[in-house]
């Protein structure tokens, strides 16, 4: 905030200041000792302009920092001490360098003039700064526009200073007296408008009380010295009467302002503590809103929660304990080590009874609590529950050091805050969950995409063999796989498999299986051989808990035979002459065991194909499809449906079965992939 009359200087502060100072210096060197009233007045005007430019220059420097009233007051105090020293020791210093300095005041000795200039200029600078501080203090925390009062005061101070040279003229001295009196009146009025004290905390108010006494006394002493009859007064009067008067007015201003400040602060003291608490509550409210924005990052949130918790209940340390897997874990700690927090937490939370677990508990630690040195360091612990949906999620703990204990107000504050913290923590958790859910859904999208690419896009076509297949993926990819391999012109290999587990890991194993069988079918001759080789390869890559059930079959179109081997998979069904035959050769699932045990368990069956034979391959998704009562579709219903559509083409059979399954499961969601492959031998077309 820059004063209106000084706006002129705004653009070139330093240049203006240096220019005016230069003019003043030259003026003083050339016109010292002149008694002409006009010359003196011109000098006065120059001096006041210098002050004005200095104030503007300083204010730019001050304005860059955030203003703390207490440090401003300190500045005034220090400057006052400097003024005091300057005034007190000016006589002796000048006498040291110049003979008869007192008489030489009016001499035209240029060196002496320069010394006088430097001295006066120092005084002038100090006064300017003090004036600037007054201005800053005046405008500090003012809610309304009050610059009119201050500007009026400045005008009168300038007038009072400029007319000071009339003091020796008894007829005209009433003019300067009038201006002075008006100035002082305005100073008093302006000094009463102090609005920044209320914003200080109690400690600051106490130091302000002491400072204001000291400073107002210093101002009074300086005022007395300034208008005394020492060398200082002579020099200043000779340099510029206006400066001398300006100094007086500043001293008066200081004395009045700081006296009023003293009393105001004094009357503010009793309410200081209440004000502090209110101010803290307000800032806590701001913190609460900060909590809401931080739910995105749990660690950041925990950090803020512990920080605010310590503030609201005036404690030194705080930490959060959360329930994870039925265990309380310390998740964030502030001003206390993790180990200490764990120990104290265990001790304190161990004392909470079942029926009290939703209230804030205060525990004062004693020596006998078995916490050794911890009980010496931390005297009182408060534990506030964190809850969500009426369930306990954890605790917010806070500790006081030394001999301090939590009082009721602290307890209430922590209680209130823990409610807010609970909401924030719960929101953060929910958000994390939904992000995780979204991530899983994305992952499943990828898995489904992989599965879609792995499965054959269309079934091979043969004259003598009708082929139909259906694959219905579950939301969580189930790991079903089927494929056909054209081994030679008259040989068709096929596989149906189910990888254990779900999701993306199952999808990757599927991809691996496809690769393995693609390559094995190029060289190996029998289904058993192929499965044994596949198992050996899988030994290197499958983890222990993953396995694959599979049936591998080989149809020789010329010899009209089917050879199959089964590794732990659902049996193959052979529909022949109106009945169903379960073809279930022995065999352990791929990846369950390796080496001889697997190889020896594996059997191979060869079937001579007959007209209208249907071969049905499926995964457990078919028989384990569930209705809302969690009942399985089951083997019986499956077989019954198959028998009903015996005479139809493979496409119709699969359609009927899928129709029957969806009729059975109704609206129940599908938990596992459903795969159904039907091959029908039809020699005569």
């Amino acid at each position: 905030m820059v004063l209106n009359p000084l706006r002129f200087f705004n653009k070139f502060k330093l240049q203006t200041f240096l220019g005016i100072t230069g003019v003043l210096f030259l003026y003083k060197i050339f016109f010292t000792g002149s008694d002409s009233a006009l010359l003196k007045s011109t000098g006065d005007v120059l001096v006041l302009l210098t002050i004005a430019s200095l104030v503007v220059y300083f204010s730019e420097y001050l304005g860059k920092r955030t203003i703390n009233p207490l440090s401003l007051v300190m500045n005034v105090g220090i400057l006052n001490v400097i003024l005091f020293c300057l005034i007190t020791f000016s006589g002796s210093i000048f006498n040291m360098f110049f003979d008869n300095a007192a008489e030489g005041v009016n001499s035209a000795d240029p060196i002496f003039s320069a010394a006088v200039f430097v001295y006066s200029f120092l005084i002038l600078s100090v006064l300017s700064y003090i004036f600037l501080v007054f201005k800053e203090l005046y405008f500090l925390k003012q809610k309304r526009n009050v610059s009119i009062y201050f500007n009026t005061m400045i005008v009168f101070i300038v007038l009072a200073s400029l007319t000071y040279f009339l003091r020796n003229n008894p007829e005209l001295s009433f003019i300067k007296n009038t201006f002075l009196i008006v100035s002082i009146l305005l100073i008093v009025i302006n000094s009463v408008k102090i609005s920044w004290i209320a914003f200080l905390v109690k400690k600051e108010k106490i130091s302000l009380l002491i400072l204001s006494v000291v400073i107002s006394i210093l101002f009074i002493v300086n005022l007395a010295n300034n208008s005394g009859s020492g060398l200082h007064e002579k020099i200043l009067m000779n340099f510029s009467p206006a400066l001398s008067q300006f100094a007086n007015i500043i001293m008066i201003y200081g004395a009045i302002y700081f006296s009023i400040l003293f009393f105001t602060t004094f009357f503010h003291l009793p309410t200081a503590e209440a004000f502090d608490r209110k101010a803290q509550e307000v800032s806590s409210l701001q913190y609460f809103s900060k909590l809401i924005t931080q739910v995105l990052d749990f660690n950041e949130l925990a950090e803020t929660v512990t920080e605010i918790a310590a503030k609201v209940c005036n404690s030194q340390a705080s930490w959060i304990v959360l329930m994870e897997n039925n265990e309380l874990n310390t998740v964030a700690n502030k001003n206390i080590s993790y180990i200490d927090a764990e120990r104290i937490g265990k001790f304190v939370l161990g004392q909470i009874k079942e029926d009290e677990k939703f209230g804030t508990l205060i525990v004062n630690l004693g020596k006998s609590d078995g916490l050794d040195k911890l009980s010496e360091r931390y005297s009182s612990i408060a534990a506030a529950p964190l809850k969500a949906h009426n369930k306990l999620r954890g605790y917010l703990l806070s500790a006081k050091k030394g001999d301090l204990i939590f009082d009721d107000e602290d307890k209430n504050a922590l209680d209130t805050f823990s409610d807010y913290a609970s909401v924030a923590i719960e929101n953060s958790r929910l958000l994390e969950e939904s992000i995780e859910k979204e991530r899983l859904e994305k992952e499943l999208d990828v898995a489904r995409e992989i599965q879609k690419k792995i499965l054959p896009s269309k079934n091979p076509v043969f004259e003598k063999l009708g082929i139909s297949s259906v694959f219905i993926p579950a939301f969580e990819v189930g790991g079903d796989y089927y494929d056909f391999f054209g081994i030679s012109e008259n040989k068709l290999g096929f596989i149906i498999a189910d990888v254990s587990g779900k999701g993306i890991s199952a999808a990757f194993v599927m991809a691996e299986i496809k690769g393995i069988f693609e390559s094995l079918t190029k060289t190996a001759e029998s289904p058993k051989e192929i499965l044994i080789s596949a198992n050996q390869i899988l030994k290197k890559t499958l983890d222990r808990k993953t396995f694959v059930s599979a049936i591998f079959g080989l149809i020789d179109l010329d010899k009209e035979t089917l050879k199959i081997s089964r590794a732990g998979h659902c049996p193959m069904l052979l529909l022949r002459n109106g009945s169903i035959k379960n073809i279930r050769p022995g065999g352990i699932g791929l990846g369950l065991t390796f080496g001889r045990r697997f190889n020896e368990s594996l059997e191979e069956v060869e079937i001579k194909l007959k007209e209208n034979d249907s071969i049905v391959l499926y995964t457990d998704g078919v028989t384990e499809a569930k209705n809302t009562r969690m009942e399985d579709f089951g083997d019986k219903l499956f077989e019954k449906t198959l028998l009903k559509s015996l005479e139809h083409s493979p496409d119709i059979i699969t359609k009927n079965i899928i129709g029957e399954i969806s009729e059975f499961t109704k609206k129940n969601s599908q938990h596992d992939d459903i795969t159904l492959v039907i091959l029908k031998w039809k020699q005569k077309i």
Partner: protein
Amino acid sequence: MAEFNTWINERSGVSVVHLKGFLDAHTASTLENTFSDIIGKNNFKIVANFKDLTYISSAGLGVFMAFIEKVRENGGDIKLASMSDKVFNIFDLLGFPLLYEIFKTEDEAVKKFEEIK
């Protein structure tokens, strides 16, 4: 969602794990934790009681595979007991009877451990 839980009782040095409910990809971790706890206490004689188990998926079967190697390396075993026909059928299809000893009752399974001792 169907629930799954386990509880354990000790019978002459054998940890009997009771499985109840629906063991699938979502609940398999519960059983994994149970087995980890038992093995963590250096108990390697384990009987899994399937009496109250209504369903087991391939992921559930995987849990047994995950631990069997370590248990057997330490001179113990996981024996399976009291399966319903439906659950046994799932085990049987995969060839588990060749890999695990499966008993009609929990008593028989525990007794088998005693015989070896």
